[in-house]
């Protein structure tokens, strides 16, 4: 756990409860967590704190002026090192079209699974 303690994970999810619980779980696993509820907030956090952010865990249907797919590619362009874990309530979605190395986790996900994906992305 300690080896990840300086890693910041940005959790981007519109549903407050879903976001809060994901943040709690990641906190329990020793990560520092920032939260965003729309694409604009993700971009402004990346612009400010991007250097410290290792993983973006985002719902693909995040509200905002940008669609989730574009957001993922933009995040990768701003922070080439960023690990991307994408989730969606749309079961038909897959990693197709996402930036290289992205992981996809369909809702309803097991939060323990989610944490281990984040772990794999931070150690990659």
């Amino acid at each position: 756990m300690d080896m990840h303690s300086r890693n910041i994970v940005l959790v981007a999810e519109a549903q407050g409860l879903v976001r809060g619980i994901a943040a709690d779980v990641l906190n329990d696993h020793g990560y520092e967590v920032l939260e965003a509820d729309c694409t604009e907030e993700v971009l402004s956090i990346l612009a400010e704190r991007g250097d410290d952010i290792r993983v973006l865990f985002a719902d693909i249907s995040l509200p905002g002026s940008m669609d989730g797919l574009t957001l993922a590619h933009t995040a990768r362009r701003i922070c080439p090192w960023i690990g991307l874990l994408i989730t969606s309530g749309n079961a038909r979605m897959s990693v197709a079209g996402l930036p290289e190395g992205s992981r996809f986790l369909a809702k309803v996900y097991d939060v323990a699974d989610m944490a281990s994906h984040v772990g794999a992305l931070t150690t990659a």
Partner: protein
Amino acid sequence: MVKGKFFMAAAERAKSDVALNLTLAVIASSSAPLLLLDGDLQVLAASASFCRAFEIKPDDVTGRQLVELGAGEWNVPQLQSLLKATASGVARIEAYEMDLNRVGHDGRRLLLNAQRLDYAGDDETRLILTVTDVTEARLEKKLKDELILKNANLLQELQHRVANSLQIIASILLQSARRVQSDETRSHLHAAHQRVMSVGALQRQLAISSEDDVHLRPYFKELCETIGASMIRDPNILKLETECDDSVVRADVSLSLGLVVTELVINALKHGFPDDRAGRIKVFYHSEGNDWRLSVADDGVGMPTHKDNARPGLGTSIIKALSAQLRASIIIEDAGPGTVISLVHTQAAKAPSLGPAA
């Protein structure tokens, strides 16, 4: 045969020509709107249905140029060049769509087909042009497409909401399990979490299939993978497998079957394999006609023999309720080692009042 140029002027004389008369009669009486044209796109004959459909006076058609018909609404350059190309034999108009715009009328969507008539003994070019009004059909299709799209969007929105709700419940249960002190409470919370995840697995299966029917093989496979991932500590020691035929069932039936599998597997995990005992749990499903059998077999320590240990938990009541709903009997067999619990549905024994066989 009468020469083309004289055709109209000679209409009276043509009465003597039986073949021509027959041709004109056939055209005039066609229920599908159609025109007979010569190579210069002059109208030789029009069906009454054509005149009716496009409000053209029947006695003011023959001998006119196509472009002069009505108030000139048939003067469509692209149609003309297509017809000319058809007349010279280099093209054929098949299902060409155009909009007919008449003053005082809504636009009509027309489907045109034109063909050069080949017949022996005459070097005059003759074209037959059929016109189908597809305005209503196109409009209907557009509305239907819009409705389908709207429904698909609504369904997707609903799936997102359901997924988010289940996500909240599942996450809270698992987070709570991490924080409680009591092992028993923790195992209850884990089981509850698993039940929610099982419903989530079905939800995904339904969303992917886009039908109301669920293929049991991939569904059970995914379900058992989810159960295994969250409830089996070491998959090398304890294996969870599925063996399922190609059965397809209705969504509501699949939910019941999936919850039964969840309960039976949780049960086997809880009671069959104490102290990290190695073994295997297998889920079978087989159907023949309307009869089916769902079994969960384990090679664990077997059923508790003392009545005290056999106190029915939440799982037992869930299984009983679901089997009644599925009109199935519960059969419990001692497999020595282990236990096989089956739900059996046969057409003859459909009355749930027969009760569990065990």
